[in-house]
């Protein structure tokens, strides 16, 4: 896509993957802007492969039970709940 101009269908496809509805005007605006931005990202092609050996170590700790949120606290920001559960939209 970045070798050729970004087209509106690709913007709609990515928006669909990301679960974000877009208005037609947003699709048009993003199509232009993404072309510029992805063109700028093209320069990453020049980056050599870098051997990196990150100094990572496993951080282990004992698996102990601590207090967490109560069910009431965990549900306190949900727009809809039922019988102590989050209520989501229909899975179809």
């Amino acid at each position: 896509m970045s070798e050729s101009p970004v087209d509106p269908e690709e913007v709609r496809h990515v928006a669909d993957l990301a679960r974000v509805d877009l208005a037609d005007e947003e699709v048009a605006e993003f199509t232009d802007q993404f072309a510029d931005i992805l063109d700028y990202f093209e320069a990453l092609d020049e980056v050599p492969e870098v051997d990196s050996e990150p100094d990572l170590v496993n951080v282990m700790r004992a698996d102990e039970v601590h207090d967490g949120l109560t069910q009431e606290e965990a549900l306190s920001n949900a727009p809809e709940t039922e019988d102590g559960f989050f209520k989501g939209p229909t899975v179809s």
Partner: protein
Amino acid sequence: MSSDQQRPDDTHSAPADDAHNAFITESTVEGDREGPLADKTVAIKDNISTEGVRTTCGSAMLTDYVPPYNATVVDRVLDAGATLNGKTNMDEFGMGGTTETSAFGPVANPVDTDHVPGGSSGGSAAAVAAGDADLALGTDTGGSVRNPAAFCGVVGIKPTYGLVSRYGIVAYANSLEQVGPLATTVEDAALLLDVIAGPDDRDATTNDGGEGSAYATAADGDVDGLTVGVITDLIEGADDDVVGVFQESLDELESQGAEITEVSLDSLEHAVQAYYVIAMSEASSNLARFDGVRYGPEGDREGNWNDAFAAVREKGFGPEVKRRILLGTYALSAGYHDKYYKKAQDARAWVKQDFDAAFAEVDVLASPTMPVTPPALGESLDDPLQLYLMDANTVPVNLANLPAISVPAGDVDGLPVGLQLIGPKFGEETIIRAASAVEA
């Protein structure tokens, strides 16, 4: 413990005298009244969780979100005796450099109210600059503490990755972000860093690299014999007037016994691209949680699961957040992952190696914090790429996990210019010492 004054149906309940729109929610939470911050008020960026006080991230998605727990940094600030006096305005989810992407309106720069305060922690910087809070906490993913500190003429510190707990921070790009202090003096910012630094078993990326440090004590102005490397790559893109002020601050350091040299880091040419690919990719994953089920606005429950999510996310997110989620999704999608994300990780490793090599030669590195002075309000948002380029001097530090400080260096026609000093991993004391010599 909270005397929260927000009204749930009010989308904007800032203090009546909040002339700069620096606050999203006014709320007073008293700390222990004893400790190193006993007589201080601290304003908290609104992506840092505060128990019982709404935390919006500057987004319509979280207008009514009230965290049931405190971020670790909030507990530490309260334990140190401070009084929290409000949640500060910010670019939506930290995505921006001007605080104009906030769903709660832009913040005015207290130094010149026709100009932006920088961002994304623009409310925190403005609150401190205007005297509405003694100290403030911000978060810095690609410059979001240093940028507004520079633009508002205050001090801001981005700590080494792992020095400060991110527990309770609403995640944008976890591998890059740290909580950092803002204050009017280097010593005050360092004092707040002393309070928030240190390992937290609720954030496995923290460690004890800062053990035994005394940051406020380090603000002694002693730079005799210190070697300062000017990063020439970060001078080339800066405005001439800004470079002039930067040069004066170097002269000041030199007159106090520091040795100034020049260094060049070839990898920095690719830092902005690498930063945005990584940050957007992480954002696309982190922000997947905002689906209107556990928090967020009530969606239209017609249609299936995916339709309902997409509708809530259309409604709750502003344009810059959508832009970054979509570009991140794209960069991680099949066929493009190697081209963008993997290359960006290579660039990140390269930047780290370049910094390591530079610190074998010098004690601290220097650049202007921002290549420009604060833009006028309303002039930046039309061209996102131009805004991303404004981050050229701040993002390398996040890619390399290093500490950096922005300290006021002077002004251009009344608009503040910041000096950025970068240290090696856990070298906070050194950059604090050097910065304290500049503020005089």
